[in-house]
């Protein structure tokens, strides 16, 4: 069974209010050198009976159609055969 990991993040051009809030909190806690924080989503898909290539195609299709909203988000897919 192939495993697909899908990472969805706000596009770089899109302001991330949650990441900003976490960033501010880290500064308050005294962490130095944290230049930026971006929050995202992580999905693990267990894909039955698919080759690594087919699993990638399927996972990318799912990411594009459902997991990410292309207006504000981009995604990245990793396959573990």
């Amino acid at each position, binding site marked *: 069974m192939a495993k697909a990991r899908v990472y969805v993040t706000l596009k770089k051009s899109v302001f991330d*209010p*949650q990441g900003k*809030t976490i960033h501010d909190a880290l500064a308050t806690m005294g962490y130095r050198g944290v230049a930026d924080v971006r929050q995202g989503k992580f999905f693990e898909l267990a894909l039955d009976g698919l080759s690594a290539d087919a699993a990638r195609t399927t996972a990318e299709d799912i990411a594009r159609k*459902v*997991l990410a909203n292309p*207006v*504000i988000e981009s995604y990245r897919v990793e396959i573990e055969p």
Partner: protein
Amino acid sequence: MRIGVVTFPGSNSDHDAYHVVKHVCGQDARFVWHKDSDLGDLDAVILPGGFAYGDYLRTGAIARFSPVMRSVTEFAKKGGPVLGICNGFQILQEAGLLPGAMLRNRSVKFLSQPVHVRVERDDTVVTGGVPVGTVLTMPIAHGEGNFYLPDDDLDRLEGEGRVIFRYTTRDGRLDEAANPNGSARAIAGVCNAGRNVVGLMPHPERAAEAEVGSADGRRLFEALIGVLQRA
């Protein structure tokens, strides 16, 4: 004339919208379950506010795949009037019937408060007969209402006259302090190219009788009914 109100699992303003159509405006209304795919006799459809599917994944992201949405899309493409309120607006965005996407509010807080919105266009199915510049007071209740589109797309949207409502002060002035959620260009509502699909974040159905603090929202329902009566 009959107006349909769609109920998704997690809708919470469906009864308010039904009440306004039926009892405040005195028109025929019926609920449409999200698994029903037949809109049948309906002349207009309202997608109400709430938290369809618990807002899992993203607001409206799962609801857009409900069977009823295929029919709503067909209905909209044929020119049928569709009004999306709050979560209904978000569902229409996810379905690709309205532009933009909602980011988390700038304050990262859920906001439940009255706001003032200025009517920018009087040529849509819910603003016909409401003069441009009219300021309406209605409540918002959302965590993700921060309207976003890239700048180029915003320019195009404005050029096409598709920004229908903007957050303003009580006297209709643009002011960042009056923009509750950080929406790009203070946008509170937009329409599609055909001007028959409109979405807005404030809740007109919760401000349609003086007893609840404002009756301004009723004007949008009356405008919609007027459009249907003239059709």
